[in-house]
């Protein structure tokens, strides 16, 4: 039971980071039906900028929390600028072009950003400065660290803030209107170009925070970290129903938990010696007591397995509505 609860805590922490990244995908998709594959790289740049700032400031003897906040404070505007630039210079000229064109552009932008980061921050695995001492609290047999608590709290706060913005503010109304029908929204006096740019900027800001959280939690940053994180967040967005904001949150959390439980238990389920038929016949069962077909290194496979299952059985996602011309 302790093990199960612990896996749940692990999954929730990873899942809340996925959820925040997934919001960036889903917001952009919701408004211009573009899967912005470069979003993972925005997250990476957020982590890298914070890495540099923290390394610069940490020796100055400032309180760790202040250093971390300044690091994040620098990462957010940089990512906003990156988000805005890619919309302004890469996607806006392609508005109205066949949907494949911006999609391929997104992949191109992703490669460009990755290699820019390679030039700036080298190809090494960078040890993210651990200025916040991680403290472990035990609840029964379940360990949770202060960093984990902070990550879950920050992610939920950001999700709540975004929900308020989208559903309760004039800007949010404009965003939803543009998402429904850009032409009509334009006729109603909404500056759709501005609304789309703002959507990219908000998504990038969320991504920057997610990047810093990821770096602080795992203690590493590398120029390639955005691609796998991006793909998982994309799966989360599809799981929840791409274009649907509460869906991305739910999808992220669910994916984190599925991944943790999957990696935690796959070894037991695929251990042939647990099944009577093989236990007596396989030599490995007599010698070692186990014969595992697939181990926990298949952790990353679960995200994509979930993605495939969702696409096969419920292409509109858990909370998405079936939209004839999009699915």
């Amino acid at each position, binding site marked *: 039971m302790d093990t199960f609860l612990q896996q749940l805590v692990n999954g929730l922490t990873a899942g809340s980071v996925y959820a925040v990244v997934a919001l960036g995908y889903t917001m952009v998709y919701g408004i211009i039906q573009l899967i912005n594959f470069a979003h993972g790289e925005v997250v990476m740049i957020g982590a890298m900028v914070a890495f540099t700032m923290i390394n610069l400031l940490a020796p100055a003897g400032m309180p760790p929390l202040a250093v971390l906040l300044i690091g994040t404070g620098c990462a957010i505007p940089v990512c906003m600028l990156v988000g805005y630039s890619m919309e302004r210079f890469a996607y806006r000229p392609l508005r109205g072009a066949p949907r494949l064109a911006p999609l391929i552009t997104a992949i191109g932008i992703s490669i460009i950003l990755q290699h820019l980061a390679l030039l700036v921050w080298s190809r090494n695995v960078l040890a993210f400065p651990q200025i916040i001492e991680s403290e472990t609290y035990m609840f029964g047999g379940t360990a949770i*660290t202060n960093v984990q608590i902070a990550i879950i709290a920050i992610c939920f706060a950001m999700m709540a803030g975004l929900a308020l913005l989208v559903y309760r503010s004039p800007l949010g109304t404009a965003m939803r209107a543009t998402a429904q029908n850009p032409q009509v929204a334009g006729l109603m006096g909404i500056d759709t170009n501005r609304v789309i740019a703002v959507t990219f900027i908000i998504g990038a800001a969320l991504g920057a925070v997610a990047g810093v959280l990821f770096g602080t939690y795992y*203690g590493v940053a590398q120029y390639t970290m955005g691609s796998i994180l991006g793909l998982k967040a994309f799966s989360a967005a599809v799981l929840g129903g791409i274009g649907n904001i509460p869906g991305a949150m739910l999808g992220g959390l669910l994916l984190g938990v599925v*991944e*943790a439980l999957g990696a935690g*238990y796959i*070894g037991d389920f695929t251990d042939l010696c647990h099944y009577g038929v093989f236990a007596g016949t396989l030599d490995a069962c007599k010698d070692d007591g186990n014969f*595992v077909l697939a181990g926990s290194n298949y952790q990353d496979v679960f995200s994509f397995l979930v993605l495939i299952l969702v696409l096969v059985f419920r292409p509109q996602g858990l909370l998405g509505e079936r939209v004839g011309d999009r699915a």
Partner: protein
Amino acid sequence: MKNANMRITLLVAALGAAFPLCAQTLEVKIGHVGPLTGGIAHLGKDNENGARLAIEEANAAKIKIGGKEAKFTLVAEDDQADPKVGTTVAQKLVDQKVVGVVGHLNSGTSIPASPIYNGAGIPVISGSATNPKLTEQGFKTQFRVVGRDDQQGPAIASYLATNRKPKVVAVIDDATAYGEGIANEVEKTLKAQKISVLPREKGTDKTTDWKAVLTKLRGRNPDAVFYGGMDATGGLLLKQARELGMKAVFTFGDGACTDKMKELAGTAADGMLCSQAGIPPQAADRKFTAAYKKRFKADPILYAPFTYDGANLLIEAMRKADSTDPKKYLPTLQKLSYMGATGRIQFDAKGDRKDAEMTIFSMNKGNLQPIAIIKSGKTIAYAEFIKGAGGAAAKGKK
């Protein structure tokens, strides 16, 4: 007419200048290959310095080979730690007619380069490539003065077994050839000592989230954990294990026996155990360390004592065979027994060093410190080894 006279004069002068040189000295080119650019360039330079020191000392000693005074030159090449560049550079050295090579630094570059040297019949001695495959290819020209990975696994496992006496050990690897290989050796050794080993857990060489695996292991409460993999993933593993409240002793192979562990895991790295092939540079013969420091204004970093010995072995074999022809001195090299900066060196039939040492390190307040040396199955405390072997090495050298 005048012009022709001038030419003849010049020719005579040139011959006059060149002839005595030919008569008295013998040019001997020895190659060295290691990465001099890229992420581990500092280690490549360290290796090169070791070989360079040996060559400069040999020149100063005015060794006579075949009645002539030998003048050794080091042809240093950069393989960028890249297997493709490694083969190109090897061919380049063969074309330049070097008579022996020290290197390469990495197993990944040494293995593809070895058939090229073998084809040309040129002896090559690596001071740092630990992959067993290097000497398992059956090449008569391939040697190494450092231990093998399949000696390292048993060494760290038996140290763990005898000194920490764990009842249950978990073994994790990163599903690479190196990680799986060393983890298999560790598991075999532990099982032979009747220690129970949990079913193998695996990650990848890119895993950042180990919590699922660690949580599962925590439920089985192992006394020790061995991880076969590199520092980039191993540091995270260790950090996350402590965050989950695991108290087990964590042990690693040489891939994670670096200072990067402290950077990645922070204080969680304290108390970890790890192994490295060979003896640490500070345990090498003091005469060597002093000479190195005097020449290069720095301490040897990692494998410099081994490349120093490698170059010295080539020179010693040439001296004994009284020839710089690889065909003639290769059999001598194979049978040589030589007291080097890293202790007594003899090769077995495959070209591996007999009774190669392994060192066990422990992380103590952010510093990796050698705590024991393992040689032919025996564990010697580091302090004792320094006293005993340091003296012996100093005496054995002329």
